Each structure stands twice: as C-alpha cells, then as structure tokens.
C-alpha cells in the first residue's frame, strides 16, 4: 500500500472514529435526558390521574350521599322497612335518579341483600346482591368496583351509603364508569397517553383495554406487561414495540389499581412515545453521517494534499535514485521546501554531485592506470625483442673484427635473428592493432557445436606434435542444440584463444575438454583444462586488458574473448583452483532478433 493510501486510510479512520464517538456520546446523553424527562412526565401524569381519581371519587360520594339524603329515598327506605318490597313501584326509580344525579350505576339494596331497583340492570330486581358483606363493610370513600352488566362487566368508581336507622337499612350503591371519558379528562402532555386495563377476567382480553384515542393497534403487545403487573401487583415499566417501526415504540409504565378487597381490578398504563427520541436520534445520526461524510471527503482532500506535499518529493527522490542506478549520475531533484524533505533533496543532490566528481576522478585514475599498464606492457613486449636485436647488432659489430668467413656466418645468423625479432615486433604491434580494431559481430544463425568442432579440428595437428606436451582433447557436445545468433568468425577466434590459454596452462600435458549444452534460451560452452589453475586474485583480474599470468602473453587474449562474448549479449565466467585446472563458461543467448537480413550490416566492417 502506498504512503498516500496509508495516509488517506489513517485520515478517514480518524475522522470516522471521531464522528462515531461524538455521535455515541451525544446519543447517550440524549437517551439519559429523555429517560429523565419520561420519568418526570410519568410521575406527573400518575399524580394527575390519582388527583382526578380522588376528585371523581369525591364527586361520586357527594352524589350518592345526596341520593341517600333525598326525601324519595328516605320514603323508599321506610316503606321497605315495613314489609316486602313492591318492585313495580321502584323498578324505574334507580334509573331515573341515576340520570338526574349523572351516575352511570345506581342500585338500591334492602337489608336482606335483595336488589330493589337497578339503574344499570333494571331487570335484576328481586335478585340477591352478592356479596352483601361487601356493602356492609364498604369504606366511606369511593373505591374501585367491578360492576356486573347484562352482557358483560365493567369497572366503576363507586360509593355506598346506608339509608334509615335501625336494623333494616336501605343501601344506596352508586358509581361512575371508569371509561374513555374518564381517561379523556386527563390533560396529557404531547407524546403521552393513558390506557386503562379492566381486569375482569382470568386472562388478558384486548377489548378490556380502554384507549380514549381509539387508535390502539395490536393491544396484545402490551399483554405481557399487564399480566406481569397483575401477577406481581407492583408497578413495572417496559418498552412496548407496537409495530416494526421504532418510532412507534413506547415506554409504558404500568400501575396496578386495587379494589375494596385489595384485588387488582385495573391497571393504569402511562405511555411515553419514543417517537421524539427516535426522531432526534435519527437526526443526530443523519447529522453525524452528513458531517462524517463531509469530513471524510475533506480528509481525502487534505490527505491528498498532505500526501502530495510529502510523497511528491519522495517520489522525485525515488525516481532520481532509479536514474542514478541506471547510470545517470548527474540527476538532480528540485528542492521545494526548507523542511526535512527539502534537506533530504539537497543531500541527494550533494550525493549525486559527489558521486559524479568521484566517478570522473576514478575514470581519470583508471585511464592513467590503463595508460601506465599499456606503457608497461608495450615496454615489456618491445623490450623482449629489442634485447636480442641489441645483442645481435653488438655481435655483428664484434664480428667485423673476425674473418670475413666468420663474419659472413655471423652476419647470416644475425640477419636471420634480426628478421625474426623484427617479425616478432610486427606481430606484437599487429595484435595491439587488432585489439584496437575489434570489429562488430555479423550475426547469423549458427550451430555452436559446428564452431566448436572447427576449433578442435584446427588445433588437432598442433596437439599431436611429437615434441609438444601430451594433451588429450575431448569433445562433449550437447545433442539437439538450438541454433543461436552469432558471428562464427569472432566466436571461432574467442574459442581459439581459450583453447590456446588451456594449452598454455598444461605445459606438462593434460586434458582439454570442450563441452556444450542447452539451458533454456541459452547455449552454454565450457572450456576446461587440467592445468595449473589460477588463484582467486588472478581470476578477478583475468579479463583486464593487457593482464596476463603468462610470461610471454600480451594480456589481450581473454580481453578479446570477453569483448566478443559481450558483443553477443552473453556472459563469461571462470572457475579455477590452483592445481586443479580451470574452466571457462560462456553463456550465449539464442536471440534470433539480432539476425539481419542479407545486405545489411551494423557497426564497423571487418
């Protein structure tokens, strides 16, 4: 991964984590604030409900008391105390009085517990009120009571009063329905609602859940909470998921409401809508995503700019370093800043400048050294023939003092010697000349084995000289060798030089081995001898022009070989140990692309 991408990733991750952390913190704070607010609102609503409950209870008590104190009821009580009731006289009495007193429920029960008149169930006259003890032990205040109706039952806020002194009182039982209207009278803050569950059966029944708004859907969702409260008879709070939408969720606080005998007859449910919280949370998340997105875009731009500021000089330095590696030592980079990168660029420039100077110095030094070596070699090569020439000429001068016959003989011998040495000098000069005029190879498709066999054939006679050292030439030519692109004449000369060196390395005889083989796209040639071998130092300097380990060499043979191999795009290496012979390995590419059509030529002509 590039530095630019790493920088971008770090920037983006930092921004993302920062925004996420801020969002989480804000969400947590918001949630706590909402929870506190919900608790306060619930407490206030419950208190309001209790006030309303008590107020309505007092109202019911007042109305029931007024009924009990009325003249008609007093007359009824007196009449009933004197004999069996005439139901026909009272059958509509309870209903009429209840309508006047705005009560939903009203019943007159005599001292035997018989219903004399009932507003909510007029047909129930003559039936027993059950249980009578509940009336006799009823509190003075209003209480929650289950009222039986012809088709069902409901809850009422009821009060009981006894009319008439003595042993046969008439009981007045009046009440008002705890219904939608009751709940609707509560002043609910926005986002809150009150539900009331009437515990009239053994199990949860949706129709017993009163919702003043009438918009309650899926009432079964609140059933577990109601059942828990009915079972434990304790307040409880739960988040109710009314639908799959989170905005419909509600925190519902359930409060059990007990009747006269402490049985839980109702459950008040105070719902706090989570919609504002969910909406706010959604807004926070949206804002966080917006800010996060914008920040990430900004981070990308900033990281791009910063990475550009940092990596562009680095990339320029890397490019310059590659140029230096390719040999362009004069490469310089632009110093665009005065910071560490600028110092690095300046140091690089100084380094390349120093390298260039040192290179020129080295070249100069090598050139001087080469000239010195050339001079030494020339002096050495030329000194060898000059010394016999000097001796021969001095011998001729001395021979003039001898007899003519002797002089003639000396002159003839000296002339022969002089000519031979002069020829030797010409040969030396010719080799130097040849080396300076090394031609460019003329590539053609050849078989390496053919060249090797030609060389072996050329030296066959020389190896068989009777006065020469006994050298055995062995050919190990690879089969199926692919043709290569090469100049057969130059290659022949190079191999010949290696063979000559091998023969020189085996003055006492030995084995000369010429081996070829195919290695992928390369053809390999090994020239091995079993001669004296070379030291590692000799191996390192072996291909230096004018270097020779022999007493009579010019030091140009292996230089010519390396030049030929290099011109063919190949490589030459040497492996040798003193006393164990030497092996030269030439590696030549097939490289048929170098083959030129007939009539074209490159480089110098031979």
């Amino acid at each position: 991964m590039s530095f630019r991408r790493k920088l971008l990733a770090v920037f983006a991750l930092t921004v993302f984590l920062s925004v996420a952390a801020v969002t989480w913190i804000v969400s947590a704070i918001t949630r706590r604030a909402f929870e506190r607010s919900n608790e306060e609102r619930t407490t206030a609503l419950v208190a309001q409900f209790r006030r309303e409950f008590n107020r309505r209870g007092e109202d019911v008590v007042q109305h029931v008391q007024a009924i009990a104190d009325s003249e008609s009821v007093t007359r009824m009580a007196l009449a009933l105390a004197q004999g069996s009731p005439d139901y026909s006289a009272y059958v509509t009495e309870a209903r009429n009085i209840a309508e006047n007193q705005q009560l939903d429920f009203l019943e007159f029960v005599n001292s035997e517990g018989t219903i004399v008149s009932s507003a909510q169930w007029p047909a129930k006259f003559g039936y027993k009120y059950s249980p009578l003890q509940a009336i006799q032990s009823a509190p003075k205040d209003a209480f929650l009571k289950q009222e039986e109706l012809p088709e069902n039952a409901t809850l009422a806020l009821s009060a009981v009063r006894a009319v008439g002194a003595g042993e046969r009182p008439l009981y007045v039982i009046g009440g008002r329905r705890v219904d939608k209207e009751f709940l609707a009278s509560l002043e609910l803050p926005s986002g809150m609602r009150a539900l009331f569950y009437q515990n009239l059966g053994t199990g949860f029944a949706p129709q017993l859940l009163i919702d003043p708004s009438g918009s309650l859907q899926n009432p079964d969702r609140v059933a577990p909470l109601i059942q828990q409260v009915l079972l434990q008879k304790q307040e409880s709070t739960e988040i109710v998921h009314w639908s799959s939408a989170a905005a419909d969720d509600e925190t519902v606080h359930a409060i059990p409401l007990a009747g006269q005998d402490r049985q839980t007859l109702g459950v008040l449910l105070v719902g706090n809508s989570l919609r504002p919280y969910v909406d706010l949370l959604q807004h926070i998340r949206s804002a966080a995503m917006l800010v996060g997105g914008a920040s990430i875009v900004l981070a990308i731009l900033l990281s791009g700019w910063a990475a550009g500021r940092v990596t562009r000089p680095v990339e320029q330095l890397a490019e310059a370093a590659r140029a230096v590696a390719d040999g362009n030592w004069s490469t310089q980079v632009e110093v665009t800043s005065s910071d560490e990168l600028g110092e690095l660029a300046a140091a690089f420039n100084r380094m390349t400048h120093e390298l260039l100077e040192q290179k020129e110095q080295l070249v100069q030094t090598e050139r001087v050294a080469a000239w010195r070596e050339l001079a030494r070699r020339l002096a050495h090569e030329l000194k060898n023939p000059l010394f016999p020439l000097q001796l021969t000429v001095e011998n001729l001068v001395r021979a003039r003092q001898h007899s003519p016959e002797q002089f003639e003989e000396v002159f003839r011998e000296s002339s022969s010697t002089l000519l031979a040495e002069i020829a030797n000098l010409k040969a030396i000069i010719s080799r130097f000349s040849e080396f300076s005029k090394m031609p460019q190879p003329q590539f053609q498709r050849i078989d390496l084995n053919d060249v090797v066999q030609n060389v072996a054939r050329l030296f066959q006679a020389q190896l068989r000289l009777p006065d020469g050292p006994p050298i055995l030439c062995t050919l190990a030519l690879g089969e199926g060798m692919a043709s290569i692109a090469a100049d057969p004449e130059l290659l022949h000369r190079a191999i010949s030089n290696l063979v000559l060196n091998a023969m020189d390395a085996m003055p006492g005889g030995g084995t000369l081995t010429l081996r070829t083989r195919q290695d992928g796209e390369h053809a390999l040639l090994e020239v091995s001898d079993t001669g004296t071998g070379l030291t590692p130092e000799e191996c390192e300097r072996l291909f230096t022009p004018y270097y020779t380990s022999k007493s009579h060499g010019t030091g140009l043979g292996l230089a010519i070989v390396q030049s030929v191999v290099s011109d063919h795009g190949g490589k030459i290496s040497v492996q040798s140990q003193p006393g164990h012979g030497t092996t030269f390995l030439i590696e030549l590419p097939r490289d048929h692309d170098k083959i030129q059509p007939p009539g074209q030529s490159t480089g110098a002509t031979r």
Partner: protein
Amino acid sequence: MRRIVLPLLVASSLVWAAVSSAATRPRYGGTLHVAIRAAPASLDPADPVQANSTAAQNISRLVFDTLVILDDRGQAQPALASSWQSEPGGQRWQFMLRTGVKFHNGSAFTPDTVAASLRASNPTWKVFPATDSVIIECDAAVPDFPAELALPRNAIAKRDGNKLFGTGPFAIADWQPGKKLTLTSRDEYWGGRPFVDSIEIEMGKSLREQMISLDLGKADLVEVAPEQAHRAAAEGRQVESSAPVELMALVFSRERQSPEDGKPREALALSLDRSSLNTVLLQGGGELAGSLLPNWLTGYAFLFPTGPDLPRARELRDEAQQVPIWTLGYDPTDPVARVVAERISLNARDAGLKLQLSAANSADVRLVRIVLPSLNARVALTGVAAGLGLTPPKFTGNSVSDLYAAESTLIQSQRVIPLLHIRSSYALSAIVKDWGQDPDALWRLPEVWLGTEKP
C-alpha cells in the same frame, strides 16, 4: 225579595241545564290531532307491512271500508256487502254489494272495482264481478271466509296510478309518507258523516314526544306504552286501555329437531317468571299468557300454565344431554323489549340456561310482539301463527275444543313460548268525547266528537 229571587233561581237553573246539555251533546266540527309512533310509507291496505301495525290498521279503517266487519263477538256484519251467501262446501262465496256508495274521487262503487281490489290483496283468490255482487272462489273450504274479508288488508281500494281512493268516512287531503296525514270527513259517507271535520295524524313521534304534545295541547290522541299507562293515569291524564290484544312471546328460529332438543326449550319455558314481567316491567299492562290467544277471545286460555317451575326446569336442564347457548334477539326500538329480554335471561340463568342478548335479527330465540289480527278466534290463531312463522293450525271442526286442540298443538311444537297478552293504551285530551275502541283496540273515530274544554 222572594219575588225576585225565585225567578232568578228558575232562570239560572234553565241556563245551567242548557249549558250542561250543550256540553254532553255531540257536535260537528273541529280537527282531531293524533300522534303515533309508526311511520308507514304507504296507505295501501294490500301492503303486507301494515299487517302487524295497529296504527296502520286504524288509519286504514278511516279511509277504507271492508265488505264485512266483525262485531264485538267476532261475528261478521254487513259493511260494503249488504249480504252474502256460500255454496255448500264453503269454497265459493257471493257477496251482494251495497248500493249508493262512492269512492272519494266520486267514482262509482262497482263489482269490477271490488274484484280488482280483492285480487290485489289476495292474488290466489279467484274473484269474479257479477251484476251487483262479487263471487269469490277459494282453493279450499273456508268456513270463516266473511271474517277473513273483515281483515284490514282486504279493505276495498280503488287504485288509479299512484293514487288510492277508498270509501271510508274520511278522505285523504294531504299525505306525506311517514310524516303526516291529513284526512277530511265525508258528508256523503254511506255510514253517516263523522263528527270531526278533519284529522291530522303526525307520524314517527316517540312516545315521549307524543306525551309532551298531549301535555302542550298539540295532540288530542296519543299512544301510551303499556308500562307507562298506569303512571300516566296517576298523573291525571285520561288514559284508555283496550283488552289485551298484543301477544308477547319467545319464538325459536328453528323447529324442534328431537324430543331431546325440546328439554332445554321446556326448561326455558318453566323458568320464566311472567308475573314479574307483567307486574313490574309492564306495570300491570298485560296478562300472563300461556296461550297464543287471550282468554277474553277464547275462554280457555287459563288452561295453559303460566307459572314458573324452577325445580322442574333445572331437572330438564340436567336431563338434556346438550344445553345450547342461545342468542336472544329483541327489537331495539321497543323501549320495554330490552329489559324484558334481560329479565328472561336472568330467569333462564336461574335454571342453568344461558341466553346472550342480541339486537340482530338472526338470533336463536326472538322476543316478538304481534297484534291480534282479528276478533274471530280461528282467523286470529291462523294470523298469529303466520305472523310468528309457525306451521298453520289445523282445525278439525268449528267448535271451541277444536280451536283449543289446534292451539295446543302449536304450543306443544315448542317453537313458541307465550309470555304476555298486552293491552293497547291511549291518552286523550279533555276535548275528546265519546272515545271508543273495538275489542281489538281499533279506534272508533267516526263516533268521536270534540268538546270545548281546554286541557
């Protein structure tokens, strides 16, 4: 002094006698204002909707006449038919038409018109007009055919497009269906001109609105619920009640499937406390009913038991292998039906039976009220059975015992449980004089005249 006082006394006595005589002697004129709860959309006597409406029958009698009317004993008397005769077998009847009768539009009362009217009311009859009579042929022998013709649905009407014309004592002056009907008396009525000049009938008024109208002097004749009659009278109003002419009963929607199926039905019948229903809920506005027809009509109704027998009811309930939960339907527009149904449900609960109240029509058991259709017992029983959806009664003879047997068979079918026979009651203003009702609670308005007393 005595000379002066004595003539003054004589003179004042004569004036007082004259005034008193004027106050009790019928006089012509005035408009009778009537308010009723029913709101009939049609006055056509052939309209089957009118069959079970006393108010509709009352109105029909003011505008239309029948060929025959029934007297208080249920005997056929001449009306538009002056006489009649039947061929042996009782399948073919000839009714001689009264002469000099005209319809309200002035057209002549002819056999053709009568035949057309009867055909419209009874499509299965074969009615042939003759010179001065009509001949009616029935599919089977009908011994009480004249009583059948006295039913309001067989009143003679001349239909002229959308207009209806009768021969009754009053003609239609203004008709707003379901709202108001104005009638004017006919001087040329064959039975004699009624005393009042006109009658205005306000329709669709609740009993409470009617009572308020009466108290405010806006109505002279209003209906009173039987359970309110006692109270209305106690409050000083003039209340007139008829004989019990309306049957309140429980009717099962299905026939009894098996004797086993009849046990819960019998248990229900034995659990009912009819006395409480009558004395408390209806404030004594009826009589206990164990039969379909009232005792005053048949004389044998007391033979049918009406008292509860809870122990036996519980036994039958325990004997029943399967005790169904019935739905009890009632007419929600009837102010007393709901509380009666609730009481029945309580009584049934005492016997271990369960009845669920329902205002829907498709209930297992329905609480129904049906008006006695005729003063003829046989025709009345047939009409009641048809009105309740029961199998038509089969009479083996014309005697009372045959009638009793037919009615007993209907009761024993356990499709119906009679509860009460209820009176019809009306409250009258003080100016209404000579008020009268037939035994079947139908008004005799032609005989009514209006006094001058202010309420």
